[in-house]
């Protein structure tokens, strides 16, 4: 697996857990794996495991969140909307072996837990910094809609076996971004690049 460059605190530990789960999934089904095998395989203690995760299902949920949110801060800054989405879908695709083999968590079970508030906050922050005047109620509605729906479409992609490539998914996501929000993000991204160069 290739891991996101931008990670949250404690990722080094969680990474061991993800790798342990992936190894276990090579041998048997998700339903037949016991929690203690995951933390033993990761070489960490039970206490450490539970500091990061609530249980077996939570490992998959956290992985999803971590991978799907890793590029959030970059979209509209150093990355265009498309580049941000492409990176996100590529990271998720890296964990394909885990996601598509976890049959124990149906689409419905994953969806309510994949959190969208942090997406809203992150996008609002980017726009507040770059062009605060644009941030009216309609734009907030567009941001909330996109933030709520995007993770659901990603989960759907996963539950369908990730047949579409990350590039196809990024292209499709490009087509559902509300036009106004999209043009604002593009403008901010080109400003962002100018700063970076």
């Amino acid at each position, binding site marked *: 697996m290739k891991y996101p460059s931008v990670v949250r605190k404690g990722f080094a530990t969680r990474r061991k857990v993800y790798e342990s789960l992936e190894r276990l999934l090579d041998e048997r089904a998700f339903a037949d794996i016991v929690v203690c095998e995951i933390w033993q395989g990761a070489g960490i203690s039970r206490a450490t495991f539970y500091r990061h995760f609530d249980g077996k299902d939570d490992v998959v949920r956290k992985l999803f969140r971590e991978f799907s949110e890793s590029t959030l801060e970059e979209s509209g800054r150093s990355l265009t909307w498309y580049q941000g989405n492409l990176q996100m879908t590529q990271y998720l695709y890296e964990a394909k072996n885990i996601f598509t083999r976890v049959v124990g968590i149906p689409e*419905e079970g994953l969806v309510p837990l994949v959190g969208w508030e942090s997406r809203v906050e992150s996008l609002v922050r980017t726009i507040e910094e770059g062009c605060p005047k644009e941030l009216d109620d*309609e734009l907030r509605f567009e941001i909330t*809609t996109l933030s709520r729906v995007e993770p659901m479409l990603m989960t*759907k992609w996963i539950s369908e076996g990730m047949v579409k490539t990350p590039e196809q998914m990024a292209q*499709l996501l490009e087509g*559902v971004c509300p036009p106004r929000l999209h043009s604002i993000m593009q403008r901010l991204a080109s400003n962002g690049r100018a700063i970076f160069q």
Partner: protein
Amino acid sequence: MNVKPIERSEYETRMRIVDSFEELLEHSTFGHVSVDELCKKSGVSKSVFYRLFEGKRSVATWTFDFFAMEYSKALGVSMDWRDSHRHVLQVMIKYHALFSSAMNEKGIDSFYQLEIRKLTANLEAALFDYHGVSRSDELVFQISFISHATVLMVCDWFVAGMPYDMETLLDYLEAVVPQKLYNTVNRLMSANKQNRSYV
């Protein structure tokens, strides 16, 4: 499509039951309204009631399935996105007690999932089967997006006690319809107008 076409008289009887249910719910709760009461209020016999509905739960489901399907079919013929959204919202507002009960009965998350699936199926059937638009990954994805968006955002608005007016919500919803899908429906609309002007 998941709702069978029905006769006018059957439609009227069903709507009488639906209207009575909504009236009863103004002063009671879903759990407290009995089928007997409902039959009495709407003036239909119990046997007629059970011929039309499986039980009181299916009264609520049928109402929204029926109207949602009607408006999906009208989309691109007599209605654009805004009109079709407006009609659904008007039904929701008119039968708000029934709608709230249906939402709470099922639990909000499974209610969302179910409604999203139904709306997706309706829109796909309307565009691809009914209007003969050619199916592409892009349009299928955009239909999935707008189905999720509509159900989630409309229910949020509804659950929050309709914090701003309906026309504002319609503006917002119009702004999140993906471009290609939006244009496809507009093209259908203008093609239909042209056809009609020849008649």
